[in-house]
């Protein structure tokens, strides 16, 4: 049946290529995922109807599906400049901002679309979808903040000198601050992954066996890097007043805590 509908749209378009049939056909091709064909039909139609809002709206949706968010946003914004109550543009921008993770702007545009046409099911569905996504994102952020605060709870310096990262340098939990109090968790996580790779290579090529840990005594602080498991890296940083042996003991306890926490995340 869907193919019949597409066939009839194609037939109609071929019968009169200069008619408005291109708008429905381009949209149909878009929903079928035939994006190149959809672009061709939309652009050909726009040559004949260079001011047709509906055609630009469809073209922007195609661009969004292709991933060209910037051009899609430009087109919808231009439509809104012409008609600030354009439901297609408001809904399109709502979806676009949600895709960018800007849920405030997304909800703002979708609520404006709903106020223009409260009965439009596409708008209602989009609004519900984005509200759920926004709630999930807020939950993730709260969870990340909670893990930052609770992962190493009870250990000395947990909130400022312990960092858990994956082997690709992505933060898993904890928090690292400089002695001046600036947070450096993410850049430190990225760099310790490189150090761990270098430590692995060095230990392997020099016949030292698998590396267990690396301590770095630096001008302003001492660092202890280890691998709680084969997927994660733990960096513990303390000021130079803590002797290397004590730092190693503290890192061992932090590694045990991290392993327990990682196990809970998997479960």
């Amino acid at each position, binding site marked *: 049946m869907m193919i019949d509908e597409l066939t009839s749209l194609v037939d109609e378009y071929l019968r009169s290529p200069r008619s408005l049939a291109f708008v429905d056909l381009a949209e149909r091709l878009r929903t079928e995922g035939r994006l190149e064909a959809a672009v061709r039909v939309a652009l050909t139609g726009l040559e004949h109807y260079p001011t047709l809002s509906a055609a630009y709206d469809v073209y922007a949706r195609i661009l969004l599906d292709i991933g060209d968010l910037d051009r899609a946003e430009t087109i919808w914004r231009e439509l809104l400049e012409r008609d600030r109550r354009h439901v297609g543009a408001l809904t399109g921008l709502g979806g676009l901002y949600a895709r960018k993770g800007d849920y405030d702007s997304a909800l703002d545009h979708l609520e404006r679309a709903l106020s223009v046409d409260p009965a439009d099911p596409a708008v209602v569905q989009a609004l519900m979808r984005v509200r759920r996504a926004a709630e999930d994102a807020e939950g993730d952020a709260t969870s990340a903040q909670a893990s930052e605060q609770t992962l190493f709870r009870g250990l000395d310096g947990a909130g400022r000198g312990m960092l858990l990262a994956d082997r690709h340098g992505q933060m898993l939990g904890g928090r*690292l*601050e*400089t*002695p*001046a109090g*600036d947070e*450096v968790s993410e*850049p*430190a996580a*990225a*760099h*310790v992954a*490189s*150090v761990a790779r*270098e*430590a692995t*290579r*060095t*230990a392997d*090529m*020099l*016949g*030292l*066996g*698998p*590396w*267990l*840990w*690396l*301590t*770095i*005594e*630096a*001008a*302003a*602080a*001492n*660092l202890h*890097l280890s691998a709680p498991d084969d997927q994660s890296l733990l*960096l513990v*940083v303390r000021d130079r007043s803590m002797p*290397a042996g004590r730092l190693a003991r503290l890192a061992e306890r932090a590694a045990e805590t991290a392993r327990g926490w990682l196990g809970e995340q998997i479960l």
Partner: protein
Amino acid sequence: MIAPLAEALDRMTRVGGVWGALLVAADDGLVIAEAVMEGIKPAAIAALAASLARQSGIASEAAGAGTPRFLHLQGAAGTLAVMSAGDGLLLVAVGSDEMNVGLARLEMLRAIEAAE
């Protein structure tokens, strides 16, 4: 100056578990002076130690800890210790997993004094 340095490196190799001691250029990882046991390849140790020191320096700066002075890489079967000797030089000791890092470190400090 070379003779005291050679003696200092030699003293480092007498620390329990140490297989070799080297003075290395930090920027290119080339060997400047060495005292290693037979079968130990100084060029590889120098290059890898310098590279690890470089990477550790970047991470240490990113963490706000400043320039590294001493590194200790512990492997299941061996140990690598690297100390900044100033003037773009590194002092390196490599040994077994039972290497006495504390004593090796003291001898490294003495070797740096000898190199000055």
